[in-house]
């Protein structure tokens, strides 16, 4: 690679010529402040925080977009630069809703951190604030534009990564505000509610719709039997909220923490994932045997389902009719488990802790109930669960771990890897291959479906059949697969789609990493590795071998795809129409 010599604040270094000044500075541990920059996603030079002086250049230079060149001499810390940055930051703060004490992002806010870092001691230029609005109409995402600094990271993620483009800047100048077409709520536009915008937001302008109060109330209600279930990806990230390193697997600590909150039972959604494999796998086998609609596509990711309903209403028969794991599990808890434990399902309150904000919307779907009993009553994000623990004085970094409750607690390794891209596919293949061939797998790991590539393809030999599969994560990649299907060019039998890039470990409900961490640490990989490690360590690694699942079918559901299974565990989809009556 071609290298160039540059000097930053007196530090001489050699860097690839493809670097920006910011890249080089980070390598030299020179900390240039940024706000709008999100590596490879939002490189628009808008916030003016990363300005530097370059010898010979006219005016300040925007370091996040300026490529290095040979002999370049950069100064990041001159009085003029400090003064300019501070003035710009003060201007931002003068137009910001500074209710930091009560803000959900307090302590994890890039704007707040920068104000401290730049030693802002007062705001010299106070004045009128932009009149902004709050959108809290969706079940998943709240946007409070009074805290928005117009960095447009959310816009870029929505447009360039997810390729949904549900939001953009509205109005101009001081009146600018981020919003959707015709000032509609996110609820009423083709937003997938994936929540990647929340992950990208440096401030408290975007957050999940709060469910903590609802859950506290349930916990405080002596009439209710309150059960919590936790998704696979939550345990791989919740530790970050308590200062543990990224990639820490905090399963037992999480369970112990939830017990301290007062839940009657703490169960594992991974068991629901095993159940999903049974149902979805059976559906796939049926389609293979009966020449059904191909490819069959997974339906565990509610952001993906909503996206499909909005954008590919003509292809909904490709989606598996299986409910997502936590919905299935909720339905089983309120039927099988309730009967078994003799609890009135109407007095049972099921809380799902999810790495996801779309799950909030999913749990409120009309279809997600059986005989008038809702599958799931409240969905907390990983962040909300951590918030409740902190409120209750629970510190996961200093807690003694505890196991999931039985009898619904034990899950297979296949269930664990549901939380990462390729995991659902791998779990399904472990089961489908064994059932179709009738022989035990010679190799449990399907390495070919793992990894960060946007679209992964593989051909799996099952008996004499070549089963072609594809895995897409991030809705931009989903779009490419769906367009292939629409054009009749998709050769696949089975496709896994997760709305979030990287899968649930990087879901919109997960702990938020700042831009610098995102640029320098492979968060997806570390969190996914935690789940693969868990899979490896478990004695049972195939869903159909999970004794809880076996027993469930024996005692209650009869067999996968049975009438009862359909009633409890399957759902339907409907096209979403927007802007129709306008």
């Amino acid at each position: 690679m071609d290298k160039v010599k540059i000097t930053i604040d007196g530090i001489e270094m050699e860097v690839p010529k493809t670097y920006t000044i910011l890249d080089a500075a980070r390598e030299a541990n020179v900390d240039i402040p940024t706000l709008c920059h999100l590596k490879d996603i939002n490189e628009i030079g808008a916030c003016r925080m990363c300005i530097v002086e370059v010898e010979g250049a006219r005016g300040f230079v925007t370091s996040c977009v300026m490529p290095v060149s040979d002999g370049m001499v950069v100064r990041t810390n001159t009085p003029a630069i400090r003064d300019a940055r501070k003035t710009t930051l003060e201007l931002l703060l003068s137009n910001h809703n500074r209710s930091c004490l009560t803000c959900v992002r307090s302590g994890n806010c890039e704007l707040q951190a920068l104000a401290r870092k730049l030693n802002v001691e007062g705001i010299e230029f106070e004045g009128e604030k932009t009149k902004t609005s709050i959108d809290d109409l969706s079940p998943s995402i709240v946007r409070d534009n009074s805290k928005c600094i117009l960095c447009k990271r959310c816009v870029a993620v929505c447009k360039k990564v997810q390729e949904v483009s549900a939001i953009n800047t509205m109005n101009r100048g001081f009146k600018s505000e981020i919003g959707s077409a015709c000032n509609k709520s996110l609820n009423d536009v083709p937003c997938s509610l994936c929540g990647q915008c929340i992950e990208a937001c440096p401030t408290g302008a975007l957050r999940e719709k709060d469910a903590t109060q609802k859950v506290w109330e349930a916990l405080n209600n002596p009439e209710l039997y309150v059960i919590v279930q936790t998704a696979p990806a939550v345990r791989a990230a919740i530790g970050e909220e308590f200062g543990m390193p990224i990639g820490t697997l905090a399963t037992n600590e999480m369970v112990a923490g939830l017990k301290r909150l007062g839940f009657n039972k703490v169960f594992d959604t991974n068991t629901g994932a095993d159940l999903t494999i049974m149902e979805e796998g059976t559906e796939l086998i049926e389609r293979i045997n009966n020449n059904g609609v191909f490819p069959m596509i997974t339906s565990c990711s509610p952001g993906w389902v909503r996206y499909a309903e909005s954008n590919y209403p003509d292809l909904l028969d490709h989606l598996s009719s299986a409910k997502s794991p936590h919905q299935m599990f909720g339905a089983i808890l309120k039927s099988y488990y309730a009967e078994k434990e003799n609890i009135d399902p109407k007095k049972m309150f099921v809380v799902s802790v999810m790495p996801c904000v779309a799950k909030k919307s999913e749990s409120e779907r009309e279809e997600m109930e059986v005989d008038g009993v809702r599958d799931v009553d409240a969905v907390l994000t990983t962040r909300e669960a951590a918030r409740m623990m902190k409120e209750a004085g629970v510190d996961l970094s200093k807690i003694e771990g505890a196991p999931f409750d039985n009898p619904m607690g034990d899950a297979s390794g296949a269930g664990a890897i549901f939380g990462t891209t390729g995991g659902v596919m791998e779990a399904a293949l472990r089961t489908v291959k064994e059932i179709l061939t009738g022989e035990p797998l010679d190799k449990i790991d399907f390495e070919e479906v793992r990894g960060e590539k946007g679209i992964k393809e593989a051909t799996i030999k099952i008996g004499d059949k070549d089963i072609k599969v594809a895995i897409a994560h991030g809705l931009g990649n989903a779009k490419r697969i769906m367009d292939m299907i629409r054009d009749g060019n998709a050769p696949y039998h089975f496709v896994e789609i997760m709305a979030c890039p990287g899968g649930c470990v990087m879901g919109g409900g997960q702990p938020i990493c700042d831009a610098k961490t995102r640029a320098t640490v492979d968060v997806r990989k570390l969190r996914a590795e935690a789940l693969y490690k868990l899979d490896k360590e478990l004695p049972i690694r195939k869903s159909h071998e999970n004794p809880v699942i076996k027993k469930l079918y024996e005692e209650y559901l009869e067999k996968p795809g049975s009438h009862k299974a359909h009633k409890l565990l399957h759902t339907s989809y409907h096209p979403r129409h927007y802007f129709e009556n306008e």
Partner: protein
Amino acid sequence: MKSIEELSEIRQRTLEEIKLRKDRNYTGKEKHVLVCGGTGCTSSHSMEIIKRLEEKIKEKNIQNVRVVRTGCFGLCARGPIIVVRPEDTFYAMAKVEDVDEIVEKHLVGGEIVERLLCKDIDGTAVKSLDDLNFYKKQHRVVLKNCGLIDPENIDEYIAFDGYKALEKVLTSMTPEEVIKEVSDSGLRGRGGAGFPTGRKWEFAKNSVADQKYVACNADEGDPGAFMDRSVLEGDPHSIVEAMAIAAYAIGATKGYVYVRAEYPIAVKRLQIAIDQAQEYGLLGKNIMGKGFEFDLEIRLGAGAFVCGEETALMESVEGKRGEPRPRPPFPAVKGLFGKPTLLNNVETYANITQIILNGASWFASIGTEKSKGTKVFALGGNINNVGLVEVPMGITLREIVYDIGGGIPNGRKFKAAQTGGPSGGCIPEEHLDTPIDYESLIAIGSMMGSGGLIIMDDSTCMVNLARFFLDFTVDESCGKCPPCRIGTKRMLEILEKMVAGKGQVGDVEKLEKLALNIKRSSLCGLGQTAPNPVLSTIRYFREEYDAHIKEKRCPSGECKAMTKVMIDKEKCKGCSACSRKCPVNAIQGELKQPFEIDQDKCIKCGVCIATCPFKAISRV
């Protein structure tokens, strides 16, 4: 497709028909009645005048007279303008009702209608356009065809050497030679910044790509500026031809003209020009049979000021929200649709054909050492001859204001001139003799700008002027970067406080601090120049700021909030007329005793001043 021979034939034939418009010694019987069809004259009914002229000529069965709708003559203040050629009779402020008299007396009777002749500032009627002081110091290069040809007729453009420059380039010049000619001419960007045009072309040529574009910035946005509009309305083919030449020089095959939709006449005429050029094979494949391919498309802008900034313009052409992109990459490397793009302003292009035809040294002989050629200004504000002027670089502001512009109306005094619009600065009286060129204007804290030239008399408050321009920038900021989005708003708030009489000591320093940081921190030219009107008014009129802040007084009397309406007790006869008219019952008194105004109630509307029969009430 027309061959070079066919074009030449069209040129000869049409020139025979229309040369009388230029030829003062023409002795034939033909007459052409030229009526201005620019936006200004159109809005004062010049189209109805044309219609009536044609009806009347038909009715009278007059032969040998042709009515021609032309582009702008420049003297917009006296529109609608009618010029009869070859005798060059200049009728000003004509009405539809005047048409019959012109036809009967002048076109039939051969007698000039004296009462309709244009009058110079001193009141003397001028027979010929050339006799007007307004035109005497002008030098028309860019505007040479404006007011002379029918802009919707390609043949008339061809007649006056139209498409001859393109022919010359395609038949006898290499792209390098074209660029050298442009470089040698010394032409600099007329959009305002003054970057050497030849260098820009060279950068675009040196970029290697499978596709390149040329683009024309016709998003004229300065308040009061209408130079580019007039060129497009009066001589659209000059832009089409120049862009084809530029495309040849840099190796582009496709061009875009970005025009604001608020310019309907310009858009219509440019589209007609493009259609005609395509029909003649002057756009398209194998132009003039020389194997050169180039085509042109119009893209309409919605009128956002920021879209005049080159990268925001490109975003807008691509169909996106008009916001500037960071540079680098520069447009010459990565412009429209990610391809190398050459972007020039309308007026810059309008010089190109003349440079090619007359040579770089001819062009370089006009103007000053570093600023060559001419500059078009839209002259407005407190000036007698409001209109469009084209002057050689190096002329002084004094010559423009007094010789061309005819001075300040209503016996007022010149106070300052604003060049560069909201990005520029004001020039006070002490700098009236500054030569108009890029460097001199920068040196006195202003800038060339795109050509808006607003003259202000002594009734103008400079603090309020700064507030006006900031109000404009705040409204037009795209909002992408905080210094511009919030900083200009904060500056505006301080200025609003000042003009409301609520300024505080230290506010000027606050303005200066904000201005400095907005200038150096903003992403694009809009923000980087937005504080200029404030800085230059502080520089030259600091005492006015101080008067507003310390004395709560507006020296020019423009800021109403700071004036007091007072009754002169000596003059007041106590008639109560004012008291009865006051809309807020602020005036009390006993009959036949001096009345008094309650300053807390007074809204300074001035009704009492107009009412008082003894002139006892005035603003102080």
